[in-house]
């Protein structure tokens, strides 16, 4: 999955070339190659900054904006509910203007949107990586019936219209479940539905890797020394699939950011009034964007920049750790 699948969460990209790990030197030589990749390094720095902004959003906002959920009706035209002034009421006090209808500070909401976006995307990716790695290793290492069942399961998940299923799942989850409620539950559900449709991508890669590693001497050796299935899987196989998993996990993050934004855009994202980029775009899409493009540009460009940075970093990692897959 080298690129965001966009329309649907279903894979639109063939399983990428398999990385051939050669032990410790791979990490070092990969790092050396990565350091030379300027766009990837710049993206990395940008993403670290973004993470800091997300973590310290309250500080940022207290310095440069207003609380993200605080309405400012006085800034709106009472007849149209649109902000007074040009560019969504942009000013030194409201760097990116205010939202229509309730006058909330767009700058603050964009900053806070990064929190949801990164949190959901990272957790969903972690979910996909954990499930994908475990099941991919099981399928590849145990083979036979296990492999058949897991491979069919992956086929099944890639065959369903995933956005639709994701929305349906979100729609049927009650407001309190699994000991969670409120935003915690919503984020949990989002992580689950995004992760559950994303793990087969990792699973396929891991399975392919393990299939080629299974017959190698060091595995044989470990087995002949009496190592159990789990020892072999986690001691011997896991370190060897770590590099490709890391690379493709990085490339899965931007896809998951887009998926989170898509679900929010379709109205099944986090709970209001929590700020999220997809939700801000949804607000803009109800005609407001035609009146003041800033409503759409702020969240849209935030998504774009973040996804682009992750893609650049992911491409860089792939080129560095999997030279065959790149240029």
């Amino acid at each position, binding site marked *: 999955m080298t690129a965001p699948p966009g329309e649907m969460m279903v894979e639109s990209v063939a399983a990428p070339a398999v990385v051939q790990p050669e032990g410790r030197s791979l990490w070092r030589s990969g790092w050396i190659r990565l350091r030379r990749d300027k766009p990837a390094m710049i993206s990395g720095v940008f993403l670290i900054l973004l993470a800091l902004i997300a973590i310290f959003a309250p500080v940022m906002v207290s310095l440069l904006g207003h609380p993200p*959920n*605080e*309405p400012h*009706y006085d800034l*709106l*035209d*009472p*007849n*149209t*509910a*649109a902000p007074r002034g040009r560019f969504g009421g942009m000013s030194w006090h409201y760097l990116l203007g205010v939202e229509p*209808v*309730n006058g909330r500070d767009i700058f603050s909401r964009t900053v806070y949107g990064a929190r949801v976006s990164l949190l959901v995307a990272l957790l969903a990716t972690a979910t996909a990586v954990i499930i994908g790695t475990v099941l991919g290793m099981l399928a590849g290492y145990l083979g036979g019936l296990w492999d058949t069942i897991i491979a069919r399961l992956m086929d099944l998940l890639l065959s369903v219209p995933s956005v639709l299923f994701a929305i349906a799942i979100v*729609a049927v989850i009650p*407001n*309190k479940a699994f000991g969670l*409620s*409120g935003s915690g539950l919503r984020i949990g559900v989002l992580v689950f539905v995004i992760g559950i449709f994303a793990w087969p991508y990792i699973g396929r890669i891991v399975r392919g890797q393990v299939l080629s590693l299974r017959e190698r001497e060091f595995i044989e050796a470990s087995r002949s020394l009496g190592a159990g299935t789990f020892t072999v899987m986690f001691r011997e196989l896991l370190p060897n699939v770590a590099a490709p998993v890391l690379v493709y996990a990085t490339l899965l993050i931007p896809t998951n950011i887009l998926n989170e934004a898509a679900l929010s855009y379709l*109205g*099944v994202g986090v*709970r*209001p*009034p929590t700020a999220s980029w997809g939700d801000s775009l949804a607000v803009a899409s*109800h*005609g*407001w964007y*035609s*009146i003041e493009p800033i409503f759409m540009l702020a969240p849209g460009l935030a998504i774009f920049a973040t996804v682009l940075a992750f893609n650049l970093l992911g491409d860089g990692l792939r080129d560095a750790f999997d030279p065959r897959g790149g240029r």
Partner: protein
Amino acid sequence: MKRRANLIRMGALAAAAGLVLAACGGSSGGGGSSGGSNGTSSGSSSSNGTSSAGASDALLHPSDKSGGTLRALNDSDCDYWDPARTYYANCWDQQRWISRQLVTYSPQPGTPKLTGDLATAVPTSSDLKTWTYTLKDGITFADGTPITSKDIKYAVERVFATDVINGGPTYLIDYLDDPSAPYPGPYKDTDPNKLGLKSVETPDDKTITFHLNKPFADWNFVMALPGVTPVPKAKDTGANYTFKPVSSGPYQIEKYTPNKIITFVRNPHWDPKTDTVNKALPDRIEVTMGLDLDDVDNRLLANSADFYVGQTGVQISAQNKILGDPSLRKDRTTNDVTGFIRYLSVMTQVKPFDNVHCRNAVAYALDKTAQQLARGGPVGGGAVATTMLTPPLKYYKSFDLFPTAGSKGDVAKAKQELTACGQPNGFSTTLASRSNGKEVAQAEAVQASLAKIGVKVTINKSAPSQYFSSTIGIPANVHKNGIGLAMAAWGPDWPTPYAMLSSIVDGRKILPAGNSNYAELNDPAVNSGLDDGIATTDEAKAQRIWTDTDKAVVKSAAYIPLVYDKALNLFSDRTTNIYFTSAYGMADFAQFGVVK
């Protein structure tokens, strides 16, 4: 057995738009009101100002020119074209093209009067239980067969067959059924002519008499609903009648492709001499359905279509265009109070709202101008509301029991009430809302208002279809989920206080499922007001009873009126005879004509 609440199904199942019943009209100057009665704010005063700029009471482009094709647009199809099953306000309005009832609304702007349609006149009843109608001569179906009183009785009976004919209002069952021997509907009727309903008598082909099981002053309004449209038994196809209803009105269906298009042509057997209501000016009517709402606006702006049958008002970008173009606004739009009310339901059986002071705190804390903005502002959204009865309704009277400066809320008073309630530091609660339309923005505004007095609100969004039937319509669910507040809206099936209030405030109608008295308000003053009001024939007495009842409801703070809905509707430059009628809360489609 109470069957169905009296409301026009709005948005409950409708797709995007949210509200189905639409808007227009507040003849007497939308929103009169209350927003302004105590301390005028720039917001609410401009709301009054703008509403008068609309068409209220006005008749736009009067003309008697006939001919041409009227081109209507809609985002979705009607729920049913079977007159007994449809429950959308705009569909009732459209039914006027193909169906006639015993009585109907007179063709005039503003608050309409009932007038005879198939019946010669609108009867009165001294006991409010026995109602007799006499049919006109020369009335026929579209195939030329004369319409008799038996056809009307048969139509009434169909409504009883709820296993086949469902979806529409059920007043007929409520008032005509014998609970000791329920009538099963004509399909299971043992009577050879399938006319076994005892409470309706047809002594001859011209006379029909209804014997109600209890007094009901609004019965004539029930007779104006499309459910009483005559149905010829020979042509009744049960559940499939919706695809080919037999016309009794000036037009008949030419072609119907569900969700796409329905076209109407003149009914050759319609005799204008028997019909004093329908102008029937166009030769042909086309309703194109399944359109995106922005697309609808654009087509209307471009005059490539004449009107939007949903009548819920234009979308934001078109509204912006209209507000920036005074001549467009003046000549081609209406902007009336529809009769629909947006309100906040405060659950009296959920802690701490079992204490009236906590409810009062909410009533004082709410910034109603924020609600108005969330609905779309004074033009597109509506006027700040202070009463549960809405301006287009009979017996509406303005008052404000929770006045705050500029309707923006009063934090100090709200905090006093909180202290009185024993919650000086606030509390946490859950606010339910539908997940679509403008309700989420409203919920967020409630959340922001209550945050100011330390009440922490969690918003619980539900799919619109399950919102009323399960989320807030099952009291057990409300209690279990701790839903203290709920966004709600109501539109009456006909423009009287009883139609507005009986289902939503009657303490004896709190049902374990399908409940519409969401707050579970059970106030003796309200209950008796409803009973007295509907049994009164005296106008002055009725006015007093209904105003007192309205005040009792608002005073309970179980229901907090927020906004009287308004809609800014756009018409093509060739549409004629545009005026608002509170009968449907929108323009009267039956009078439209086209020039050019």
